[in-house]
């Protein structure tokens, strides 16, 4: 489960170039951006989502603080040359949304092949270019994230990554205790004092039936439209609206 987005500070992107930046007429093809978290507090990342702008390949490195007892922090590669654009020269994937998330347990599950009905549509659908990528390492105790963007094609003027949102993991170890007044439930074998009131069993079963009926009604609500295009029988339109 993930919490809301985490605040971060993104440093100015640094472009890597051979030779002197001022005299070099070629545009850089590699760009590096560092992201740090305020207060220096290490974060347990659940997911990083972003919007691409003409970046072809993305690598992610994480600065993880070491376990207690050891000084310093270590950079690890979390994602290596993940392709955002299938072909760096074409538009495909150039402005798409992506997300990189923490691995969840054993990552593979079997889907019966009968589900993959027919030829074109379904198989193509399942084999569409991935917009999610799993991380190679566990992103725990991260103090800094480094994004390495590559765009080998000379066709584009600029490339970067936009709308970066980092989600951290929700804390699982704070379990609240059940308050004392909740724990004293009525023991079942105490006799109930009914005086002219109906049997609670029949009442509860009929309430359950009514609830089941309302559930059926709610669940069978359809999104099918009636097909009317007029408003109360009137469809007198003079001019089209530009807004």
């Amino acid at each position, binding site marked *: 489960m993930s919490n809301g987005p985490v605040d971060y500070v993104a440093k100015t992107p640094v472009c890597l170039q051979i030779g002197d930046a001022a005299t070099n007429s070629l545009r850089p093809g590699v760009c590096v951006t560092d992201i740090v978290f305020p207060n220096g507090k290490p974060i347990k990342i659940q997911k990083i989502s972003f919007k691409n702008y003409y970046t072809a390949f993305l690598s992610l490195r994480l600065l993880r603080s070491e376990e207690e007892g050891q000084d310093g922090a270590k950079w690890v590669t979390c994602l290596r040359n993940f392709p955002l654009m299938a072909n760096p020269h074409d538009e495909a994937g150039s402005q798409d949304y992506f997300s990189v998330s923490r691995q969840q347990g054993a990552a593979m599950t079997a889907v019966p092949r009968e589900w993959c009905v027919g030829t074109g549509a379904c198989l193509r659908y399942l084999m569409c270019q991935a917009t999610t990528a799993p991380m190679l390492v566990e992103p725990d105790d991260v103090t800094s994230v480094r994004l390495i963007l590559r765009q080998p094609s000379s066709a584009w003027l600029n490339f970067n990554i936009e709308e970066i949102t980092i989600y951290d993991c929700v804390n699982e170890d704070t379990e609240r205790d059940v308050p004392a007044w909740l724990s004293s439930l009525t023991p079942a074998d105490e006799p109930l004092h009914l005086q002219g009131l109906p049997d609670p069993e029949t009442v509860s079963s009929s309430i359950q039936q009514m609830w089941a009926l309302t559930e059926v009604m709610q669940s069978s609500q359809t999104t099918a439209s009636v097909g009317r295009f007029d408003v109360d029988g009137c469809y007198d339109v003079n001019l*089209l609206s530009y807004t």
Partner: protein
Amino acid sequence: MEPVLVTMDEETELSFTIAQMVQRLKGTHLHSQLERQAKDCLHRPDIKLESLKDDVRNFLKVSGWERKLQNAVYRELHIRPPPGSPAAPPQHTKEPLQYMRNAQASWEKRILKSLNSMCTELGVPLARKRPLPEQRELSNKWNEMGTDEPDLSKFRPVYAPKDFLEVLVSLRNPNLDCSEELSSLSHWGLIKVPLHVRDIPQVREACPELTLTSGQLGIDDHPHVPSDLFESEHVRLGRRVLGEQDSAAAQQYSRQGCPTGLRAQLWALILNSTNDPEDIMHYEQLKAGVIQHDLVVDNLIYKDVKLTASNDDYYFVFEDFLYQVLLCFSRDTTVLEHFNYNSATPPKSYIQGKAEQDEYAVIYPPNGVIPFHGFSMYVAPLCFLYNEPCRLYGVFREMYVRYFFRLHSISSHPSGIVSLCLQFERLLQSHLPQLFYHLREIGAQPLSIAFKWMVRAFSGYLSTDQLLLLWDRILGYDSLEIVAVLAAAVFAFRAENLMEVTSLASAEAVLADLSTLKVMPLIQIFVFATMI
């Protein structure tokens, strides 16, 4: 069947897709039919209480209802946009590239202005309720609207394909470096956006059924070829596919062509278009909408039919059908669904002049589609297959929301008109560079000639039997790419003559008449017999 491995993320996506699809199918007639069937089958002796769920499921499978559900799911997969990131806003699903969205929005604004100014000039409202005598008259004349000769001289089409081509040619990606003249993307054509399009080796890979050694209708059903070589077996297979009522199998079958006698049923099966009482009732509802309200769009349709289909040797007999289909099409609000994956947005208006008040907001026309010059040609070829207006209507509407809408909206989709134009130009430049260069030098850019063919998917340019063979493959491969490939193949075929012309007019004259062309041999030779 061996299982396919998917990752956790893909599994979540799959469950999400399944849940969405169940929600969509819940409101349909099929859902209530399945429920009724399941209830009725409980009387059957072979349904046991202990294994109730499995027995009912088995019954539905054996009686063919599971197949109908499969076809419905298959249809939903076709029109569903590919899975993207959940963070993507809806406009990104319609069209991922910002500059294309902007271009489409300004093109639409131009169309709205054009329609508004025409209405203001003529002093007619965009829509009005017909007075009762007029409604009665129209209802009586419903089957012979072609005999009407209303005065349409003041109405003009909102736009023609050549206006649209101008807009596409001016499309620019602001992030594209156009400074280098001799870059690897040096492109002689008119389209300047770098979309991904397939080249010949990739088309070969994508369309293996069209290879030289594989039988085709359109080639191997020629009178000189003995029918037991391919044709009779293929027809027999077609009958079996129809018997199984399997949409996916019919789509695969259609790649090698549909026999004339089975085509109508096969296309309806591929598109999952039914002719149940519910569909007939829906059509009658649309007809009532036509009779009750008069739209300016109706006049545009009349004019278009009179100018195009009525003048065509093959299609003039179907004039009445065309009105019955297109007028009802304009009233069909179910078409609005396709705007979820169409880069276009339906035009909005307010009734009774109550601007900016949401409770009076309506979409105009009700289906959100403003027809342009030549629009009726999307329907005309279908008239050869279906003689009942309701059936014809159902198939046309499905073909429009799957394919034809992409031919007149600006998007980066591989089947969109921009990609088709770019693919045509790239194929021509790669394989006939001398021809392309020559035509460019004499001021006859190939796209300026081929555009009108592609925008109509060749309807009205090829002879009908050849056109239907082409549309078989559009359905079979679920893509309009074959239209771009055919356009390039036509240029390749007439290359010798074209190399000798010296002006745009003579180039157009060489390519004016395509009615004698046989499409499948042209495509096969261009794709599979070209030296790379």
